[in-house]
Every structure is written in C-alpha cells, then in structure tokens.
C-alpha cells in the first residue's frame, strides 16, 4: 500500500457498499488479518489479499474494487476467511456484495454475465443437449423436465 497516500479516501463508498446485501459487514473489519493466512487465492498469488480488499472498501478505493479485472474476482469462494474472522465480517460475503456492485455498474466479467443470464433464460447454467438426453436414457434416468423459466422472469427484479 505504498501509493496509498496518493489515493483519494472516500468514505461515501461505505454507504454504497452498505446498500448491497451483506455489504454492511465490511464495517466490522478491524484489519487484524486473520483472513489472510489460510486464504488459498492469497497463498497462490502475490496480489490477492482479503484484508487489503476490506481496507480498500473501508477507505473507498472504488476504482480498484469495482471493475471487471478487480482482484475480487480471484476469490475462490472457499469461505476459509469467514471461518477465521473474529468479527463476523464474512469476507466472502463482502466480496460478493462488491461483485453485486460491479454487476450493477456494468463492470462484471463476461463469464459471470453469461452464466447468470443463462439461468434466467433457460432455468439452468448450461444447455440441455441431445447427448445428455441420450446418456440419461442409457442409464435409465428420468428425462430432463421442462424448466419453468416464465416463473423466474416474474420473481426476479421486483421489490
């Protein structure tokens, strides 16, 4: 964080993060670093560090967090940090809140947009193929049932 002094601290970002589900939990972080030691993404890269992601959130370094190539997308969602955190920050959930803000800002990786669009368009993350139907038949499994996409459209995006 050498260049920290040159960055603009913006506490209003904390309000923005509070507006995302579970985002408020970043306020509980006192930067103890218990989340760091067993973090697999952290142990396998120079740059990933859940404590620093929380610090950037607390200081409002929005540009570094809210983008499609932000470090947050390297979180493996393993939840080890949530096990270690003494403050119930649940860092994975804060990272997910940051991801929700990325999507809201149109700054999510294409893969995230495509897979989640697929759920709303077809009811599943992938596509039903004739090979899948054939394999299921060979195994004596029930045929794939229709996915009620019409219901999904009605229940999302409300409230």
């Amino acid at each position, binding site marked *: 964080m050498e260049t920290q002094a040159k960055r603009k601290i913006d506490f209003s970002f904390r309000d923005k993060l509070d507006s995302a589900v579970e985002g408020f939990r970043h306020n509980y972080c006192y930067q103890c670093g218990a989340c760091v030691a067993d973090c697999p993404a952290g142990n396998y890269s120079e740059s990933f560090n859940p404590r620093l992601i929380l610090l950037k959130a607390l200081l409002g370094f929005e540009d570094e967090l809210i983008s499609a190539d932000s470090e947050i997308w*390297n979180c493996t969602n393993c939840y080890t940090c949530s096990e270690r955190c003494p403050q119930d920050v649940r860092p994975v959930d804060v990272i997910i809140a940051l991801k929700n803000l990325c999507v809201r800002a149109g700054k999510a990786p294409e893969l995230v947009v495509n897979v989640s669009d697929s759920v709303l368009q077809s009811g599943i993350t992938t596509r039903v193929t004739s090979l899948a139907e054939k394999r299921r038949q060979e195994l004596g499994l029930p045929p794939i049932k229709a996915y009620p996409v019409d219901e999904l459209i009605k229940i999302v995006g409300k409230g």
Partner: protein
Amino acid sequence: MKYIPFFGCMMTIKYPWFESAVRRTLANVGVELVDIDGFTCCPDPIYFQARDKMEWYTIAARNLSLAEQAGLDIVTTCSGCTATLSEVNLVLKEDADLRANINKRLAEVGREYRGTINVRHAVTVLRDDVGLDKVRETVKHPLNGLKVAVHYGCHLLKPSRVMRVDDPDRPVILDNLLRVVGAEPIRHEMTLLCCGRACMSDSIPDDMVTDILETIKRHDADCMGLICPTCFDKFDTGQVLLERKLQKSFQVPIVYFFQLLGIAQGLDPKDVGLHRHKVKVDRILDMAMA
C-alpha cells in the same frame, strides 16, 4: 426415509452417471427419492450470487418452496447446490424481514417460502439417517486395498455456521464413508484445499490443482475421492487440460464417492459411469471386475 432429490444442472446434464450412482446406491440403503417437477438451477452460488444476491435468494426460495409443498426434506448431491439451498434456507429462516420481502416476490407466481424443510447433502443422509452400519451391510465387494486421497471440497463444510456438517478444519465424514466401502482414506497436506474453480485467474487454480495432484502422487494414492461435481470437473477434465498446458503427466484418477459405493455394492461399473472419465480409472475397474 423419503427425500426430494435436487441433482442440479451439472449432474443432470454433464455427469448423469453420478446421478445414476446416487439413485442406485441410495435405493440399496433404503432411501426413497421422490422426484418433483419445477426445480430450476439452485441458482449457482458463484456466478449467479455474484450477479444479484436478492435474485439469488429469490430463485433458491422458489426451489425450496416446491419441496415444502411436497412436505419432504431435500437431498443434494452437488456441493454448489448444497451451498446455495442451505444458506438461503438458513438465512430466510433467521431473518423475518428478508423472508417477507422474498415472499412478496414469490407471491407473483402464487408461491410462498415457509421454512419448513431442511436441506441435506446425501453424505449426511448416509451418516445420520441411514447410519454407517446399515451402509456397510450393503457392501458386497469391499474395495480392500484401494487408497483414496480424500478431497473434501469447500462447500460441504464451509461456512460452518450454515453447513453444520462437520468440523471444517478436522472433518471425518468422508474418511469414515470411505472406510465403510473398504477403502483406505489417505490424508495429505492438501486434503482441505479448494479446487479453485470459482477463481477467475488461470494461474491460481492451475498451481493449486498441480500441487494437489503432485501431493496425491507422492502419497501413492490410487485415486482422489470427492463428492462435488464441480471439483470433479476441475480435477478430471481440468487435469487433462492442465497436462496439455504444462506438458506434464499426472494421471491421478478422480472418483465421486457414490461411484465407489456403487462398485462396492456390486453395481455394473457402466451404471456409475466409470468408463466415462477423462483420466482412466483402471485400478477401480479391475477391482469391480474381480
């Protein structure tokens, strides 16, 4: 013992032989699966949760409400589905305001989440409801001498506040189940490491998977044993891709626990799809044929 099965997208479409293994082995231990109509994707805990957590809650609550209507607990066989349905079920049971908000959305399609059922991973049904002794009674061909490197995967255990399956740092559930089928569970330094599937970087999961596979080879295990189709994808197909990329050979066979149980129960290896793996599983097939 009746449950509603929730197999999820990946198992239904990409790995139907895992579904076959689950259906057949659970039937053998006296578990009845009651299929219902109308489920969608759980929805997926990585990409869909990253999209919009309220929508994630809503779609999961809709799936849960279908099982509630049928009045039976859900049994899951994919760690991703387990993660989504368990977390949303717990959060909605705990948070009345959120529940009311979600129910407003569900009312659009005449549904309601009430919080009346539980979500159970199939391995917990074996341990807690069927009982390990009963499972052992169904084993006709114990896999004696098969050394299985245990891979827990993250979402069966964590977050433990939600999952409540086993100690996330010292789990024993899969080791004990492997012993029941006669195999020898092999613990290694990387038994609890994540498969890295959710990570957007290439290098982080590549290095993790390499380390795990090399560690398993060092421990002379015959295969890796796991219970999550996403981990399976990362270690089976992913292993072949990684071998090409790194010009290395690992050749660590990967098996889904219910395949091992099926083989031990005397099922045809084809019915549990052992011949469909990208990394060949000859030793286990030999045992099955013996």
